[in-house]
């Protein structure tokens, strides 16, 4: 079994701020891997470093056995796609859904565009009626579905998910999480998912890494977490917090 994503001693520095302080992890092919942490933990930075959006100061990133250099080539983006947190910000305000989905196909010179767009829309449960709408004519959940369709249209093997449901209502969140699980099963995708919510990560992922202040705290399997078999206090705090408010006294 090879690693879909392998990261060794990754360090990311913005100006002088060390956002990631030497993090290593390995995501197996077909696995769903979660990154949990609070704001400033560096979990989103890690995703951005993989895609080339954050400057790597040191360390190596290997995707599907290929070590990544400073720049990413077109082939990389056919393997790795990302879904952003804010569905209101990740769709171009002046483009129809059709145009949004056409863009990746045009960039990569893929011919059977019509069919792919229709299939992608069907797959995320939107159907043809949504094809010529603008982003402002869609609800938050629908926008996130379009973003997922856009990520899937290049048929990547790895999907990076940056808090894909944190801006959505709980009921819509459930729908989007179900959709993500479904497309993962159908396309045998590898997920690397970031969230601040332990419950979502344990629901979606087989293994996870808890992060704090740019460092890895510990790596767990979902079942270890469910059984509260954790070794670090910080993880225990997070677990307690996710259970809601408990009145003492």
């Amino acid at each position, binding site marked *: 079994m090879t690693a879909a994503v392998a990261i060794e001693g990754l360090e990311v520095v913005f100006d002088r701020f060390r956002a990631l302080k030497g993090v290593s992890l390995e995501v197996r092919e077909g696995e769903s891997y979660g990154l949990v942490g609070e704001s400033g933990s560096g979990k989103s930075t890690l995703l951005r470093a993989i*895609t080339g*959006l954050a400057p790597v100061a040191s360390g190596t990133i290997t995707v599907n056995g290929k070590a990544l250099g400073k720049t*990413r*080539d*077109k082939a*990389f*983006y*056919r393997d790795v*796609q*990302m879904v*952003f*947190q*804010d569905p209101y*910000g*990740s*769709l*171009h*305000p*002046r483009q*129809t859904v*059709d145009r949004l989905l056409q*863009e*990746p196909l045009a*960039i*990569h010179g893929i011919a059977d565009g019509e069919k792919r767009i229709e299939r992608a829309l069907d797959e995320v449960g939107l159907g043809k*009626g*949504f094809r*010529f*709408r*603008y982003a*402002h*004519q869609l609800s938050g959940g629908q926008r996130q579905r379009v*973003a997922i369709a*856009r990520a899937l249209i*290049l048929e990547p093997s790895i999907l990076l998910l940056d808090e894909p449901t944190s801006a959505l209502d709980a009921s819509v969140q459930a729908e989007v999480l179900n959709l993500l699980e479904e497309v993962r099963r159908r396309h045998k995708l590898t997920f690397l998912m970031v969230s601040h919510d332990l419950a979502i990560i344990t629901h979606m992922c087989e293994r996870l890494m808890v992060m704090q202040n740019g460092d890895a705290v510990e790596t767990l399997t979902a079942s270890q977490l469910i059984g509260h078999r954790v070794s670090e206090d910080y993880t225990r705090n997070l677990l307690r917090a996710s259970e809601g408010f408990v009145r003492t006294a």
Partner: protein
Amino acid sequence: MSAEAIQSRREWLLSDRPASRVQARLGRAYVAWRRFSANRLALVGLLIILALMVVAALAGVLAPYSATVGDLKNARLLAPSAEHWFGTDDLGRDIYSRIVYGSRWTLYVVILVAIIAAPIGLLVGTVAGYAGGWTDTILMRITDIFLAFPKLVLALAFVAALGPGIENAVLAIAITSWPPYARIARAETLTVRNSDYIKAVQLMGASSFRIVLRHIMPLCISSLIIRVTLDMAGIILTAAGLGFLGLGAQPPLPEWGAMIASGRRFILDQWWVAAAPGAAILIVSLGFNLLGDGLRDALDPRSGDQ
């Protein structure tokens, strides 16, 4: 068309679920038009500009006399009358005819300047804003140098170097009016450059060229259109100013600024020679300003549901 047909067409345009690319685009344009047409003054502006275009197109039909050849013997400096609506000038030419033909030159100047200056500004601004770093510094310092000169003075210098004439005046105005557009385009680019939707396109492997051309420029265009329209009045005035100084259109071209210049000598006794082209400049400038204001309300990318 029956009321029902109009109603159903409106529904088709305002549909939340357009069925084709054309419908989506038309619907969008219709929403912008509704917002624009709700503004009465903007409609007045649009009407003035349309009238200018019609007059320019039909100048040959509308003008009763020649614009360049006058009747020196019988018709010098006549006051406005039924025969010569706006009177005649010192060479016996009918001022009304000259103004009608002059509209062509006004449009010529305005359109050429817009075609030259706006794309230069758009290109410089978006490239500087998106690339950042050294490219940005160099491009923006060049822009600053151009901005540091008063517009008319710089235009004068260019005309002096290139020689007088309306083509050179246009060129000079275009060269001096792109820097503000570059500024606007850059500011707009900086606000969208780090947005997720631009990052999403980067993550599809799009080249920088493609991102600037297809994703950033369309977002800058509406604010640029607004600014260019509002600047039109200034451009007309600069062109008129150059004409007035004798550095723009050369006689006997019926350019409005040059007409005022030649009427200046008789301004106390034969006021109409200068007043008529002055009023024409005033009305057209006002038209562009009203239109620009209306466009700002209709196209502003920051206003909600665009």
